[in-house]
């Protein structure tokens, strides 16, 4: 079952088997959810976006020409749905003061040190992502999490390759700045509290 390709399930769905689509959802749900979450910044909305995207994919499957992979096509739907949703809501610029936690706060949640550090880093990344334009959040996610190249990202987002490089450069610079500042704040507050 797990060895069957996307194409196999697509053909099954087009042949009238709706259940075959559940395999496609199962295979791609985490990547779709992660992209939606990194762009919109909250789990409830991300779930809604991912579900809507699968709905759209199901409805338009007959128009999918298989020129790209199903994942690329689905990413495009998720990216557009998420960016449209974020654009439609009020802009909310976060300041570094609003990033409330450091690694020590996560340790109090009953997790071990390694898990706590990962949680802290993940929330810091999300915080930094929310401080860059929504299109760039998608680019960063596709480039760093999914490890896609500029050509593939261009296919998904419709942004030219050169523009992707420029946008990635700016987004990277801004996010790195935010992360460094948060880390400095973290070290400073831990020093003040006497934590080594």
């Amino acid at each position, binding site marked *: 079952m797990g060895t069957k390709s996307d194409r196999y399930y697509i053909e099954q769905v087009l042949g009238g088997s709706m259940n075959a689509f*559940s395999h496609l959802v199962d295979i791609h749900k985490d*990547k779709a*959810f992660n992209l939606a979450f990194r762009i919109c910044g909250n789990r409830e909305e991300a779930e809604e976006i*991912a*579900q809507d995207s699968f709905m759209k994919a199901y409805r338009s499957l007959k128009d999918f020409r298989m020129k790209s992979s199903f994942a690329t096509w689905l990413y495009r739907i998720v990216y557009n749905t998420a960016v449209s949703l974020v654009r439609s809501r009020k802009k909310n610029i976060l300041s570094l003061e609003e990033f409330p936690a450091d690694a020590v706060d996560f340790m109090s949640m009953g997790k071990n040190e390694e898990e706590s550090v990962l949680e802290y880093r993940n929330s810091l*990344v999300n915080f930094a992502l929310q401080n860059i334009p929504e299109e760039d959040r998608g680019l960063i996610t596709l480039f760093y999490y999914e490890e896609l190249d500029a050509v593939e990202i261009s296919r998904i987002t419709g942004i030219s390759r050169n523009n992707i490089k420029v946008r990635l450069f700016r987004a990277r*610079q801004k996010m790195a700045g935010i*992360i460094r500042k948060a880390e400095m704040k973290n070290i400073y507050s831990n020093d003040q509290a006497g934590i080594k």
Partner: protein
Amino acid sequence: MTRQELNDDELLRDFLNTGMTEKAPEGFTTKTMTRIRIESGLARERFPSGKKIPLISVVIMALLTAAAILVPAGETAGFGSSLLDKAKEPLSAIPSISDFPLPAISLPEWIPYAVAGILIFGVFDFALSRIFHRE
């Protein structure tokens, strides 16, 4: 890449590791498939009701046409004929076409019936579409 760019890239690679991708919530596939099933079911239900309207009209039209052809002229007695007479009453009040100085046109006999039929079924279609498309 400049030294600064390399540092930024390295920092982000360190923080954005692929192991920390957000996972879809539990039951996501089931919920999504339920939504798809419900929405496709609704779409399917909407389609036949839309098709019923012309179908009913066509059936009734066919029955009436068959009746008109099969029932010999002059045998429409009773309720049908009285209804036809009632319908003719207001028409008799309208001045005859021959009263107007228009060139004499000889139309086939069935034309007025066809026009009346189209009007009646137009109204009938409209009423049916209102019934079937009511949410």
